[in-house]
């Protein structure tokens, strides 16, 4: 075999290998680690595939990265929870439309000894304030995810003096700043670890620190594993902790290569009575974690 042929053959192998694995359209969905970690997708996706024959590949990241995947046209559909950013995503023409699917809520977790004394508090912002005042260890996502966005909003509402860090980068030749908001004590009591929800929970558990989590992932880690967490829910029920999830197929006008038909099918299926009942019936250790938002609006 000549050298040129050999190279051509090797390249053929490289590019052909994904094609062997596929066989038909596989829908690519970018979602958040909290959706994936909660285990809900392991119920929804197989049911969808069974009903429609469409297979789905899930890429779980922070909301920022999931939306970024959408902006770059790397996926066909995004399923995230940061409503304002989602609406902007659609308004800027990246997404075709947004459908509200369900919601769960955020909770403030902490160790049993509760050094900041926030147990049973109903106002999340006040609880954050006490954590900051007592300089108790607090683990933050710090990854620009939907949960991190929410956490920063709560710090703003808490009245604690916030520090701001800005990093200047260049985009399309123009200077742009990235800001990062935190209540001080960086690296001492405020630990911003830039990782997914599951990692943050184990980190907080190890450090016996406070943290901020969505209920679904917490339940999964608390009761769904053989070695559960000791961390408990210390503050919940504040209306500001409401956390809605939306599904957005990518705009086929902007991204002609995406599998819009299949993505559209998935989005509409998720708000169908069948899927909504699956969501309502999903239990983590006997507890409901997600609440359907589209049940009843269908007919």
């Amino acid at each position, binding site marked *: 075999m000549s050298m040129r042929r050999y190279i051509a053959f090797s390249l053929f192998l490289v590019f052909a290998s994904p094609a062997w694995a596929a066989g038909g359209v596989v829908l690519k969905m970018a979602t958040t680690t909290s959706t994936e970690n909660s285990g809900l997708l392991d119920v929804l996706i197989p049911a969808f595939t069974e009903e429609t024959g469409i297979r789905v590949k899930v890429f779980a990241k922070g909301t*920022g990265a999931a939306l970024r995947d959408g902006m770059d046209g790397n996926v066909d559909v995004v399923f995230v929870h940061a409503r304002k950013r989602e609406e902007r995503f659609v308004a800027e023409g990246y997404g075709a439309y947004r459908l509200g699917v369900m919601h769960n809520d955020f909770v403030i977790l902490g160790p049993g000894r509760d050094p900041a004394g926030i147990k049973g508090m109903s106002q999340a912002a006040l609880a954050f304030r006490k954590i900051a005042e007592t300089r108790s260890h607090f683990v933050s996502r*710090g990854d620009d995810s939907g949960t991190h966005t929410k956490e920063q909003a709560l710090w703003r509402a808490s009245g604690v003096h916030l520090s701001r860090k800005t990093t200047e980068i*260049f*985009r399309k*030749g123009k200077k742009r700043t990235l800001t990062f908001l935190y209540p001080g004590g960086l690296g001492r009591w405020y*630990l911003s670890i830039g990782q997914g929800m599951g990692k943050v929970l184990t980190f907080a558990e190890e450090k016996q620190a406070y943290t901020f989590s969505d209920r679904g992932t917490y339940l999964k880690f608390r009761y769904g594993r053989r070695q559960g967490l000791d961390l408990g829910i210390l503050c919940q029920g504040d209306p500001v902790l409401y956390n809605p999830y939306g599904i957005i197929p990518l705009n086929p006008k902007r991204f002609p290569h995406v599998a819009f038909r299949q993505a559209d099918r998935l989005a509409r299926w998720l708000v169908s009575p069948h899927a909504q009942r699956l969501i309502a019936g999903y239990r983590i250790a006997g507890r409901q974690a997600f609440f359907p938002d589209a049940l009843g609006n269908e007919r």
Partner: protein
Amino acid sequence: MSFLADSLLSAVHLLWSLDPDLYTVIFVSLKVSLTSTLLASLLGIPAAFFVVFKEFRGKRAAMTILNTLMALPTVVIGLLVYAFLSRRGLLGSLNLLYTQTAMVIGQVILIFPIATSLTIAAIARVDRRYRMTALTLGATPVQAAVVVFREARFAVVAAVIAAFGRVISEVGISMMLGGNAKGYTRTMTTAMALEYDKGEFVLGVALGLVLLFLSFSVNVFFHYLQGRSRA
């Protein structure tokens, strides 16, 4: 292409404007990596002399094991050390998990085999007569080892460079044992992984360029040392 240009521009700007976050990250990276390289060298180089000059049972097996350990994935080390340092682990009471110390422990385990194996290769290449002559002239075994070391120093420094290159570019151990806490255990590689997760590719690549520049500087420095050792 504009993406790469943006990254390059950002990298230069970050370095030039003395961005405090960037320098913290660089400082942590260098501190942890240099500490573990130093420790691994202090342990590995004498170990290499021991393996080469001492006759003992299982010598070949020891060398095979060392060579195998060179391929140990960082996540395996991360998991093992994690299991020991975790709150429910054997050494949990020391509260070491997610500290810089934990990162150093993991990294030393990672590069000890590399430092040792490459040093073995370096001193095995030195002509046996150097050592024999020194011993005949009345040198103690330690003095004879020093003679051999001086002959092999060029290659030994190369072994240390290889070990440093492995830790400064490593991400698994730093992430699993350091935990990527901003301002404390965030290194350049974990910061890059984070920027990727956030979708901030420009900043990620900018950090990559800084890392490359830094390794280049360290290598130039080592090269200078090698040049001196040759003269």
